[in-house]
């Protein structure tokens, strides 16, 4: 689990470089990704529901990003987009595709719907945090 969290940290940092995020923010992006993935792993071990685990992970990332963007005075998108990278359902998309080429239509529907559910709850978590009113308008 420590290895996985560390991998999420580095994967997020290298992904942030692909997104051209400035060097001074990279560490914080990686931290966001690692925290989100750590929460996801904790939840999935105790409640066995990838959808709920993704939701809680994304919620953590969103809260982290919002406080980070306040502290470092950069748009919240920078931390949000990079932080959710480990959580986004890339694996689900691959499994859906793999089921389709194996003619396993039940599997395709199962993985496809769970992929959409995960993408949906991550989006809802992001919107929930960003709809909290700002104390002072910039």
């Amino acid at each position, binding site marked *: 689990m420590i290895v996985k969290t560390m991998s999420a940290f580095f*994967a997020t940092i290298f992904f942030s470089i692909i*997104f051209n995020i400035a060097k001074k923010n990279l560490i914080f992006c990686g931290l966001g990704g690692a925290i989100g993935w750590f929460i996801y792993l904790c939840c999935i071990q105790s409640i066995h529901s990838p959808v709920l685990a993704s939701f809680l992970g994304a919620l953590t990332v969103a809260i982290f990003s919002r406080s980070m963007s306040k502290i470092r005075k950069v748009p919240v998108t920078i931390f949000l987009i990079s932080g959710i990278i480990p959580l986004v359902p890339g694996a689900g*998309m691959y499994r859906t595709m793999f089921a389709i080429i194996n003619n396993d239509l039940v599997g395709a529907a199962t993985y496809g719907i769970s992929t959409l559910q995960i993408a949906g709850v991550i989006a809802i978590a992001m919107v929930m945090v960003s709809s909290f009113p700002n104390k002072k308008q910039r």
Partner: protein
Amino acid sequence: MQHRSLFHVALLAGEIMLRNGAETYRVEDTINRILHTYEFEIIESFVTPTGIFVTIADSNTELITLIKRVQHRTTNLEKVALVNDISRRLVSGSLEISEALKELQQIQQKPPYSSFIITLSIGLASAFFTLMFGGHWRDFIASGIIGIILSMVQLYFSNKKISNFFINIVGGACIGLTSILLTSILPLGQHLDPIIIGSIMPLVPGVAITNAIRDTIQGDLVAGNSRATEAFLIAISIATGVGIVLKIFLLITGGSMP
């Protein structure tokens, strides 16, 4: 004439943000904030992922509407942050309009990370994703190699200005081929699943799908729909690429996967 240059600053700021991957509501917000520093009677901006529409009107100027079509979008979040900073300084009054225009033009010219660093990062990102999805150290090395090959292929084709749809099909096929090579023929990687999942992460539109849903929830229906369409098109093209190669492999070996 000051209102005209302010108008151009606002539009240029919006264009840079949209081109580099900002959300549509942020672009609208930035344009409106910049324009509100001058007392126009009407300020309307409407931003979709493929274009910006801005109208201003004043009692002593005529109605001005400008449309800016944005065709190529990349993700360069540093530029978004820099433009955001300029707009904040402009609104607070600590930056002149002419200086803002100059700084915006500088941002436009700012080069991204070099392609060597990007290639290396795609390789390392794929490698760490493989580890994250339960791969071992040998799978880590395998998907690192795949990631570097993938980004070279992508770079080669995008320099030739070929459509993204085609690049993604070729990229997917390239991932499928190299990962089979590195697991079955060269026994470097042991688990095909985490290797492929890790390597397609730089391609899959997970963030795009999430953003599409977010835009839709927030009421930017046009933006949400167009982003969703784009994301599904990318997903389909990657799946086509990887799928064809895996299917051929399954047919040759008679259905056994490593």
